[in-house]
């Protein structure tokens, strides 16, 4: 088998953790680099979808009057009404 003779020179107790560690650190670094560059990841994390809430905004612009106001009930017993105008 190709390259299997390396284990005659490198002790597996050293080589295997080194190999797995290199894979883990390398893949983490690549994912961190990609996700810190793209714009949609933070939007998605903050609950705005992956296009920065553009879908919601365009929905509102199409016909604000047809969108009902949202009523939020707060744990202290009060409530708040959030209209489409408030969103924009």
């Amino acid at each position, binding site marked *: 088998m190709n390259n*299997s003779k390396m284990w005659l020179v490198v002790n597996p107790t050293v080589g295997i953790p080194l190999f797995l560690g290199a894979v883990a650190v390398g893949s983490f670094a690549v994912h961190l680099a990609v996700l810190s560059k793209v714009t949609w990841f933070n939007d998605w994390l903050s609950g705005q979808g992956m296009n920065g809430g553009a879908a919601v905004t365009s929905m509102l612009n199409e016909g604000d009057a047809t969108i009902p106001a949202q009523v939020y009930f707060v744990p202290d017993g009060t409530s708040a009404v959030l209209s489409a105008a408030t969103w924009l």
Partner: protein
Amino acid sequence: MSNDPDKVWPTGLTLKEAEEVHSYIIDGTRVFGLIALIAHILVAVSTPWLG
């Protein structure tokens, strides 16, 4: 056992043992690669990644 003529130093493994260790690593790498490939396809389909 310690004076097994098939053992190779510095690790003291025989060629057969080295090939067995290597086969597990190759198998693990293939499984990891397959799971990673599926995960990347799912991400490419469901996010704007890659445009």
